[in-house]
């Protein structure tokens, strides 16, 4: 089970085909016939209005929910055939929120990312500690390592949770609104971190409400609306005024990012005020 050098180069494709899911007692499916793949070295952003099925889609891809129709595969294996630890070594997830009645320190929290790497009686070794230190450094929480989560700001806590997912060393990373509660600087830092991970060969899926950062950082976007894939493709091709206005039901304009920077020209969404002519 220990991550070997060979397995650290493992770059699987996580693929969902025709995924459908209806919550118990719901009338409409939360997700309806959506296909997508999270490929190594790619950053995929899933966008869409509240209640569009983004979180349900992430839970289907991570194995937390089982689709009623369609299937999820990791390379050629069905996700449901993987054991719990095996799955966690392949896919790391940062869910939207969590709480605990028992306070822990940042170091303990990030150390939990090593769970799948260690047997029940195995003590964490030098490598585990090095991975945890590295994950804390990358998420800029190393200076709070010994503080309790409850003493940190919302943004710092969020970064500690992302550090825990990095400590998992999984080749696929799924994040559910990781920028919620982060200020301008840390939102930028986070998307830069996702770009770095993508460059290192990870397959990254991020759910976000920030259309503008998604357009500047993601390779591809998937626009969900009422459980269905409404549009998909590169940011340039897909973020059009027509599709966004239809999905969000709000007047807006799409303008090119003025620059400077390598992402000059990326489509930026500007919602209009209702009282404007």
């Amino acid at each position, binding site marked *: 089970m220990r991550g070997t050098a060979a397995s650290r180069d493992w770059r699987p494709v996580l693929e969902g085909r025709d995924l459908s899911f209806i919550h118990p007692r719901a009338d409409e499916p939360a997700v309806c016939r959506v296909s997508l793949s999270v490929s190594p070295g790619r950053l995929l952003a899933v966008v869409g209005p509240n209640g569009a099925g983004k979180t349900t889609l992430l839970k289907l891809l991570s194995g937390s929910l089982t689709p009623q129709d369609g299937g999820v595969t990791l390379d050629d294996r069905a996700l449901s055939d993987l054991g719990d630890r095996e799955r966690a070594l392949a*896919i790391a997830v940062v869910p939207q929120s969590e709480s605990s*009645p028992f306070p822990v320190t940042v170091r303990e929290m990030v150390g939990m990312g090593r769970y799948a790497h260690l047997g029940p009686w195995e003590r964490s070794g030098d490598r585990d500690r090095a991975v945890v230190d590295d994950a804390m450094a990358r998420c800029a929480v190393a200076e709070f390592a010994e503080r309790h989560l409850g003493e940190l700001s919302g943004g710092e806590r969020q970064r500690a949770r992302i550090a825990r997912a990095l400590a998992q060393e999984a080749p696929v990373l799924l994040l559910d609104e990781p920028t919620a509660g982060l200020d301008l600087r840390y939102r930028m830092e986070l998307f830069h971190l996702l770009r770095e991970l993508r460059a290192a060969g990870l397959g990254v899926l991020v759910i976000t409400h920030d259309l503008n950062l998604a357009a500047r950082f993601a390779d591809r976007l998937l626009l969900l609306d009422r459980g269905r894939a409404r549009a998909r493709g590169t940011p340039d091709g897909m973020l059009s005024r027509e599709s966004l206005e239809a999905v969000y039901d709000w007047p807006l304009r799409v303008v090119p990012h003025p620059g400077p920077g390598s992402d000059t020209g990326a489509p930026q969404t500007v919602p209009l005020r209702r009282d404007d002519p």
Partner: protein
Amino acid sequence: MTHTPRRLALLALVVVAAGALSVSFGASGLGPADLWRFFLGEADPTTRSILLQLRLPRAALAALVGGALGLCGCTFQALLRNPLAEPYVLGVSGGAAVGAVAVVVTGIGLRLPWSLPLGAFAGALAAMALVLAVARRASPGRMDTRVLILSGVIIGAFFNAVILLLLSIADVESFRSAIFWMMGNLSGADWGSTGLLALLLVPAALAVFSLARAFNVLSRGEEVAFYLGASVQRVKLTAYLAASLMVAAAVAAGGVIGFVGLIVPHAVRLAWGNDHRLLLPASFLAGTAFLLLADTVARLVLAPAELPTGVVTAVAGVPFFVALLLRGGRR
């Protein structure tokens, strides 16, 4: 984590000291000097037999029951993600009490020597099976924590009613001994019951210790634990079975001794944090030391008569815990 071995060694020293204290004092007036002579092999036969037949098995039983209750409290808190959970929260004590009281009231207890602990053990196991069956039936495939607590509380309340029913038809003598058992006391200690308890305790405690890291990730919620690679349902079921078995055995041996399972893990949490790799063994050792001391007090205060140990744990434990809370709040 680097402090773990040192802290556990410190606690082990406290346990040894508490054990020595417990064995040194008692109704017969033997003191620490006699204990020392016993260890040097120079004690007279009476001293030897008092130590070997009375004090040592009693200290060993107090140690095991205290350790089991501390460990179970910690386990139920992790399992139910609730810092107020204690070993008896899921109706286990109620079931044990029904078994024990039934044995006493029907008079079986006077005729068969082992029937009271066996009745308590059977009652505890029956309660646990019933609670688990209801919880699994009501939340198929996932053993919902809230359903588990609710069914435990409800079934516990039912058992309490059954106990009152049994007591109301009991004669004065069995009423008295049933009440005395329910207050928790270790006066029935002998090597047989202690050995049996140890036999059950060791595998169950090992099973719980092996879940320490799983409890850590489970404390962040079941969804997070799943993403981190924990087999959530298997962990919950193992923890439930192992802890319930330990509580059943502890109650059968020592009656219903409250507060240890609630206070001891909390004291350890407040002092050393919530990493279960330290918390679980530390709760076991601290429970051991706490009950050794409480039982020593129970034997001495009214000597040659005895207080029920459960009374001492509550009277001594509550102020101690309040002091800890106040200190923790100021930090």
